[in-house]
Every structure is written in C-alpha cells, then in structure tokens.
C-alpha cells in the first residue's frame, strides 16, 4: 500500500486560512489501511478542527466525505454535485489522490491532509515499513526477494557497505541493513553463491530520473 502519515494539525490549520466552508475528503484505500486518511481519521480531524475554530470563535463549516478511491475518476465524480458549496477541499488521500481530485475540480483549492511517505507494508499494528520505491525494473529475482533499492540506505546493488554492523544500517541502529537481510535470505534459500554475481549498472531512466512516468496498457485500453 501507499503509506502516509498525518500532517501536524497546526500545518493543516495554517493551510486553511481564509476558507470558511471546507470539505474533508478521505479515501477508502491505502490511507484507510495505514490509518492516516480513511473515514475514521476524517471524522477525528473534523472534530479537532471544529473544536479549534469554535475556541477561536470562527464560524467555519466543516463537512466530511470518504470516497472509495481518489486515484480513480468515477469515484471522484461522486462529489461533483456538492463541490461548489465549498471554498476548499482538504484531502486525506495520498499525494496521487490529492492531485487527481485537484485535476478533476479545477476551480476549487485542494489541500493535502497527510504526508505521503512510501510504498510499504504493515509490519505490526501502527508500524509501517518501506518496501518499494517504484524503480521501474524489479531486481527482486536476484536479491532473494528483498529490495536493495528500497532497503539499503545507499541503494547499493552490490552491497553491503562497510558500515553494516550487527545486522543494522550505519545510519541508524533502528534500521535493518538491507544487505544483511538479503544475505540471510540467500543463505536460507541455499543461493548465497548468487551474491557474487556483479549487478550491472542500473537503468535509472525507468525510475524518476526518466521524468514523470506513464504506464500504457494497450491490451486493456478502451
């Protein structure tokens, strides 16, 4: 999933300056799973904002809606009939959702309610870890299913570096050394010899280096 974290309330309040009718729009996908911007978080954020504005004696209307997906146009259409009632939309979807909402409703300001962080997994309740950086050319087949791009702080394709200590990354003892994980996994697969294959220089043009990317699927295109 795409993992996001809640934005600090003060930052959200500052971004809402000057708006009086605000729609908070949640998303029922990834941000719901990572508990940053689903229906529950939208309701909680609405309560916090209403309380704050009441204390400040500001008359600000805050409404809530949670869409099935903000990265898919038909679902964005669900608010077409009401969007003009608002000065601004505060979207708690990921960055893709916020942008797609903004692209769909060009005359309404759309503000982000979360910080989009990475593609990852739920390691335990409330703990999410990065797993993929969307490099566009998956290398997992040769690294025991553990990604050196996402999990090595230096994205070393022929790691580990000399800073790997006790299974931990040199930059922070809380971070696993991605290459230690790869080595452990290759060993348990009895494929440690594969480590010695020199991984060639990577084509980063398939990552963000190549500019904004598009996937065009002629087979499913209508």
């Amino acid at each position, binding site marked *: 999933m795409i993992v996001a974290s809640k934005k600090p309330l003060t930052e959200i309040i500052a971004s809402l300056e000057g708006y009086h009718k605000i729609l908070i729009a949640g998303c029922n996908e990834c941000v719901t799973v990572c508990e940053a911007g689903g229906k529950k978080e939208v309701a909680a954020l609405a309560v916090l904002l209403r309380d704050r504005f009441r204390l400040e004696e500001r008359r600000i209307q805050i409404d809530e809606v949670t869409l099935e997906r903000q990265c898919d146009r038909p679902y964005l259409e669900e608010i077409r009939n009401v969007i003009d009632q608002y000065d601004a939309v505060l979207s708690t979807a990921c960055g893709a959702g916020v942008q797609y909402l903004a692209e769909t409703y060009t005359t309404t300001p759309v503000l982000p309610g979360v910080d989009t962080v990475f593609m990852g997994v739920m390691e335990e309740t409330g703990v999410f870890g990065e797993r993929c950086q969307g490099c566009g050319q998956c290398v997992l087949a040769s690294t025991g299913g553990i990604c050196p791009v996402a999990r090595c702080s*230096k*994205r070393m394709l022929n790691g*580990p*570096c000399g800073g790997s200590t006790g299974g931990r990354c040199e*930059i922070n003892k809380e971070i696993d050394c991605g290459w230690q994980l790869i080595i452990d996994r290759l060993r348990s697969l009895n494929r440690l010899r594969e480590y010695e294959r*020199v991984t060639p220089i990577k084509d980063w043009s398939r990552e963000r280096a190549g500019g904004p990317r598009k996937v065009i699927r002629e087979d499913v295109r209508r």
Partner: protein
Amino acid sequence: MNDTIETYSRLQRILRSGQLAVTSECGPPRGSDGSVIAKKAEWIKDHVDAINVTDNQTSVTRLCSLAACIRIKQLGLEPVLQMVTRDRNRIALQSDILGAASFDISNLLCLTGDHQSFGDNPTGQNVYDLDSIQLLQTVRRMRDEGKFLGGDEIERPPRMFVGAAANPFADPYEIRVPRLAKKVAAGAEFIQTQCIYNLEKFERWLKEAGERGLLEKVYILAGLTPLKSAGMARYMKNRVPGMDVPDEVVKRIGGVAKEKQAEEGIRICVESIQRLKEMKGVSGFHIMAIEWEEKVPEIVEAAGLFPRPAAG
C-alpha cells in the same frame, strides 16, 4: 595480477616491483585555503609513495578532492584521488575522471561513501547512481576500452591505477571475502583496507582471500590509524560503524597516563605494521592519521619502511 596495463602510477610501479608500498591520506580543509593541502603533503611527502585525498569524508563539506589532488600533483607528488558515488551521477563521475586524467592523476580509489546523514548537510539528497563496484567497472571500461559508459570513444582515455576499499570487519563476515572477490572481478587492482586493530580477524580474512586466489590478483594495502587517546579508541570501538577495536587495545591505551596515550597509540600502530609485514599477501600499508598527518613520518621510520623507493 589484475593490473595488466602499466599506468603512470608510481604506486603501481612500486607494488609491481614487490616492494612494500606506503600510502597515507590528507583530508582537504573546510575552506578555500589550498595551502593547507600543500602543508600536509609536505609533512609526509618523503615518507609515502602516494597521498590519498579524501572526498568529503563523513559527508562533511570540504574543498574538493580533485582540486586538492591537482595541487599535490603540481608539487611533484603522487595523489590517489578518492571518489565517492554519493554526490555525483555517472556523468559527473566520468567527467571528473577525465579531469583528473588531464592532470595525469594516476590513481583512483572507488568508494560508495558515507551516507550524508553523518555530515553537515543531513537534509540533502544523495545520488548513488552507481555503487563502488560499478564505479570500478566504469573506470576500467574508460581506461581499457577507451569508452564512455554511453559507448562513445574517449580521446586519450584515462590511464589510472584503480583501487577500492575493503572492510574485513563489517558484517556479515561471511560475505567479506566474496565482496572482495566482486571488487576484484569488477577490476580493482589495489585495495586499501579499513583500519586494522583486530589483527587476528584481518589475518583470517587475508587467508581466506588467499585461498580464493584473490591475493594473486590484487595488491592489499593494510589500513592503519594511530589512536591518539583512550577516548578515541572507545569512540572508534563504540561509535564508528564497521570498526573493530578489540578490548585489549582499548585497555592497553587506557592503561597508560593520559599524556602518554598518543605515544602508546603510535607504538601500537608500529607494532601492528611489524606483524602485518609478516602476513603473506600484504603488499603495503595505508596510514590514515586522521588530523594527525605530521605523525606519519615517525610511524613509517619506526616501522622500518624508510627510506621510500626513489620516485621516477
């Protein structure tokens, strides 16, 4: 040996002759006064065969390695250009290699580099377009095939003696020799190791490298950093990732009076060199006296590595 091409490198010439080589390093200043480099180089010039110049080590912004190497070259001395892949993409790396070659800088040490979070710009972006092994491949291709990574011909390809670092002490230990093998396969001709305090572990690594036939392919320069104090020993032991300082070393330097600790640190370093000289596969020494370059001559002399072979 991996070094099939004779470059202009004096370091290579000495290693090929079978004599023990001595290199050391200078950290460039945190300012634009290039005379600092010249001063450090002057301290050590008669006692080493080549001088490494670090590339924004520990990710702290400094005068650039290439400019400092040019200065050393212009003093008639031999620099080893350290190049990390943290800050430059493949265009900049290839460009700097050519820039270095244009001044006949003949030694290149390929490194990935410390992560920027250690330095003075922890909020900066990193590059890591290549890793150290891929940088080795890049420079070997430029030199041996006379080609850029993009495939175009290079006019006057760089003629450099190409090296890499190795850390026998980092984890996981089981791939430390395989990782050396990868660097050799990628084209490393010489290796400068992480500073050695745990001689037993180093010897084990060296023996295993020998069993794999790697010592017939690559020259190993054993890395040494003299300890200035017990505090430094503890810091290296506990705070520097991938560093192995055994308890007995910490105990030994801590066991003498504070004002005698620097002297003891030098003594440990010299004794280590003596022991390393006996190990098969050690082709020389890389003495990294961090902000203590003036002590290098004393260490080299005490270790019986002076005088150095004549330049030329």
